[in-house]
């Protein structure tokens, strides 16, 4: 990030649950800077610590060590109600005894605004998510997508410096989720505030984020733009978690050469010394069918997707290989083919 001040600074934060030998370390020395007005995503499988990090920022958990700052001021000792952040919960957590309008007005009333001001700003927030017509309804009378919008309006109404979103779209069906993704992005641009978004859905993360932190086992493995994370994963885990990828085990055979376990030798720039075990990764859309390619394989299955066809191949040692190919001139099932793996499309990880 450039000279813009950080919206959130997380400094070597650690957190364990439980005591003694039974303690589970959920976050291990995590540090991250989140820029102002950034759409920042914490991505990882369940149990990676992403939700715990979000709850630490919100103030629902106490950290064991480290510090959390918002716009340069430490907030980790403050109770949740004194922090300039608001949360959109996974289950929405709308107050069932209050109407939509009362839900959205809740935070404004807590800040002791005048009744007229509360009404005006709650109305604005509801209009922002196009739920003005539902102001008098109870949450139980709304659909999942509508509840989602109300939860957003409620969290945005007090104009927090940072909005925390805990897998807010995971309860919605696919179509609605796609719609809400676009709305979320627009809403963030409109409101002009920092979003910290937690998800386990890599596609959602790639679509929405300015930057993504991929987490595993309580650590941030890689922090970069969606494009960099997809195209240049820094870890085998990141490569495997984001999108589809072929992981081929092998051994460094010499400078710029890797002998795969299936017997083929391919050109790949590896930092590791000769004889080291490595994993070569390549996206299905980066490999190409070509006569005289370095990697022989047999076609086992083809799935037609319209714009492309996904071919399932089998290498000489039985390992599977996915290939995204143009739909023209496809080989038959059972055909022997050879693949070309361009060196710039390969990532080599130590095994």
């Amino acid at each position, binding site marked *: 990030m450039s000279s813009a001040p950080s919206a959130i600074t997380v400094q070597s934060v650690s957190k364990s649950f439980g005591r003694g030998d039974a303690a589970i370390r959920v976050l291990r020395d995590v540090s991250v800077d989140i820029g102002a007005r950034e759409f920042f995503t914490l991505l990882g499988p369940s149990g990676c610590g992403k939700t715990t990090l979000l709850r630490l920022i*919100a*103030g*629902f958990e106490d950290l064991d060590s480290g510090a959390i700052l918002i716009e340069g001021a430490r907030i980790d000792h403050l*109770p*949740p*109600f004194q922090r300039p*952040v*608001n*949360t959109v*919960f996974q*289950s929405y*957590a*709308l*107050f*069932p*005894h209050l*109407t939509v309008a009362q839900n959205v007005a*809740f*935070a404004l009333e*807590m*800040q002791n605004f005048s009744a007229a001001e509360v009404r005006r700003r709650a109305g604005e927030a509801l209009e922002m998510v196009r739920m003005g017509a539902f102001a008098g309804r*109870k949450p139980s009378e709304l659909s999942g997508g509508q509840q989602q919008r109300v939860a957003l309006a*409620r*969290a945005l109404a*007090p104009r927090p410096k940072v909005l925390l979103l805990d897998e807010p779209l995971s309860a919605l069906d696919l179509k609605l989720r796609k719609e809400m993704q676009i709305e979320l992005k627009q809403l963030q641009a409109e409101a002009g505030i920092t979003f910290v978004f937690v998800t386990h859905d890599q596609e959602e993360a790639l679509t929405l984020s300015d930057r993504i932190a991929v987490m595993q086992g309580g650590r941030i493995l890689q922090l970069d733009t969606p494009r960099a994370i997809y195209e240049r994963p820094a870890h085998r885990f990141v490569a495997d978690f984001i999108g589809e990828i072929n992981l081929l085990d092998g051994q460094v055979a010499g400078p710029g050469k890797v002998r795969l376990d299936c017997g083929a030798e391919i050109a790949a720039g590896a930092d590791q010394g000769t004889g080291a075990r490595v994993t070569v990764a390549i996206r299905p859309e980066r490999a190409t069918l070509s006569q005289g390619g370095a990697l022989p394989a047999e076609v086992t299955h083809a799935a037609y997707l319209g714009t492309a066809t996904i071919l399932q191949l089998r290498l000489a040692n039985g390992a599977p290989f996915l290939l995204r190919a143009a739909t023209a001139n496809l080989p038959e099932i059972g055909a022997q083919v050879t693949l070309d793996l361009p060196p710039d499309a390969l990532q080599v990880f130590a095994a």
Partner: protein
Amino acid sequence: MSATSPFRRAGLVGPALLVVLVLIGVPLGIMAWVSLLGRGATIGVDWTSAPSFANYTKLVWEEDFDGTLLFNPTYLSILWRSVWQAAATTAICVGLGLPVALWMSSLSRGARDMAVLLITIPFWTNLLVRNYAWLIILREDGLVSQTANAIWPFGPVQLLYNDAAILIGLVYSFLPFMILPIYAGFEKFDWRLLEAAYDLGANRRRALTRVIVPLAMPGIIAGSMLVFIPSLGSFVTAAILGGGKSMMMGNLIQLQFGQSRNWPFGAAISVVLLALMMLVLMGIALWKTRQEAKR
């Protein structure tokens, strides 16, 4: 939905109606009738006497020798004491029961079941015995009394045989009836709502008043009815811990059917008690429909 014939419907509802009529309607009718009769010479009621409202006027006015009616506050003060004792018991039970119920719902599955068991354990012992137990706890040479007297600088503390002793006994007896309904309502409480309240700027007090109490309201109302109504009619606690000095309506009724052998007057007080309870229930029902209408 298929139409049921009126006969069939009567046949289905009939047994239930009959039970209600025989077991509730008839006894209440007899009680109301007795309350209008005179006192008998040998048994408690003179079945042949002409019905009148004399027993009801007696609650408020006393007939002087020359037949003029004088205002007599004795019975009214007992009635008033019953109402405020029951109201105070209910209020204290809400104050004590809500936090306990909340705490219980935050426990793990096994601990919750244990807590419910612990709360219901007193019911395994007879109410009379439990009230006598309080007699021992609060007696003058007891530990509590001596400690209180040692600490309290303004003269001797009397813990037994007064309104405070009755209140302690009533709260003790009826607290489980407040805790359990509130707990039942809170058993599936979504704690994220509390987090949401904090997140939106509510401190502990406002999270309590704006989120927890409104959501606990159905349980609080149910518990209040379960506590207020039996407290209003209770007599064991007042008899034992009040030492006969502080009477409640229940004691007065018992006295009329027992020692005084004045069944009609006892029946009249019972009818008044019943009317009071009906009034409270109707008040709650009215308030509830108003709340519903507001939504």
